[in-house]
């Protein structure tokens, strides 16, 4: 589901603020850069508002944000809907006891970590990142939350690259995005 398809009037302003940078981080990748969106306070405000309007009143108790761009969108959403914010991080960044989830990259593997005790059984969780591509990172994030007994209600991203079919890697969990990029 995407707000883009719902044709909310704020979507156009958001989409035009996202800058595409060709051949980053490597040749052939058209990188969707949200930093230009953050330079427009109204468009950034609208981005957050669209998520908040969707999730307020849905009893979400935790917003989990994926390092690092998920840290930009997740906390404002968490604050507005009354949820706690839990950062999901690359290895060795979180102090204290963590649980780890490995996931596959195009070449090699990576790992996402979450603090033990941050999320409790029965917590209703939202996973937030700036973009979903193949869905590998979001899938790892969902696994971390489910392993500690949380219920992942939805994954939320500003941008989806639908051609990479990340939506299909989410174990049937719903995905909500604001804009699509083909």
């Amino acid at each position, binding site marked *: 589901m995407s707000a883009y398809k719902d044709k909310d009037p704020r979507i156009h302003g958001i989409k035009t603020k996202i800058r595409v940078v060709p051949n980053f981080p490597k040749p052939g990748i058209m990188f969707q850069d949200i930093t230009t969106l*953050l330079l427009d*306070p109204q468009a950034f405000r609208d981005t957050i508002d669209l998520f908040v309007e969707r999730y307020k009143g849905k009893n979400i108790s935790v917003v989990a944000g994926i390092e690092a761009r998920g840290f930009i969108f997740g906390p404002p959403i968490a604050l507005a809907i009354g949820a706690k*914010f839990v950062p999901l991080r690359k290895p060795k960044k979180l102090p204290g006891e963590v649980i780890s989830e490995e996931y596959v990259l195009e070449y090699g593997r990576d790992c996402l970590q979450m603090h033990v005790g*941050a999320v409790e059984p029965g917590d209703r969780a939202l996973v937030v990142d700036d973009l979903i591509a193949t869905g590998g990172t979001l899938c790892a994030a969902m696994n971390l939350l489910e392993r500690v007994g949380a219920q992942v209600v939805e994954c939320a991203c500003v941008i989806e690259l639908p051609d990479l079919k990340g939506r299909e890697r989410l174990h049937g969990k719903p995905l909500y995005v604001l804009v699509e990029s083909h």
Partner: protein
Amino acid sequence: MRAAENGRDPRLKAISDAIRVVPHFPKPGIMFHDITTLLLDHKAFKDTVDLFVERYRDMGISIVAGIEARGFIFGPSIALGIGAKFIPLRKPGKLPGRVISEPYELEYGTDQLEMHVGAVQPGERTIIIDDLVATGGTLSAAIRLLERFQAEVVECACVVGSPVVQGECELKEKPLFVLVEPHY
């Protein structure tokens, strides 16, 4: 300057209590101040953001620059609260497109901080946010990045910091505002 000096705002105790200290992380001898526990306390997290927003909202600030990655947790909410732009300052190779880089010293070796070319216009009034200030090395690099494009750095703001350290802090005489002091 500490927020505590302004007559001990009653919100500060809960904020301070919500921050946990993890000894010997990332290495022996370091008492790591972990703000993730603050983020689990919705009221305390909201109060943290509110305290910064209340301070900066009438100061004509047009840019909040946040230092990767924990500065990203606080900076955007503050920017939204005061109607400013948010600029991420990042480790090398993360920002796409044209960037400028500024080196800074670590205990062993150096690292770099990067900012997008064109994010800042000359004369823009800016605050820099991070979760914690220790030596001030990273904040100083952030100040240099912004000043290279003639931004006016009004203040550096951190959730945790020690005014005692400020004397040894290389912040180029920019004011430093912290909410709470480290627990020892």
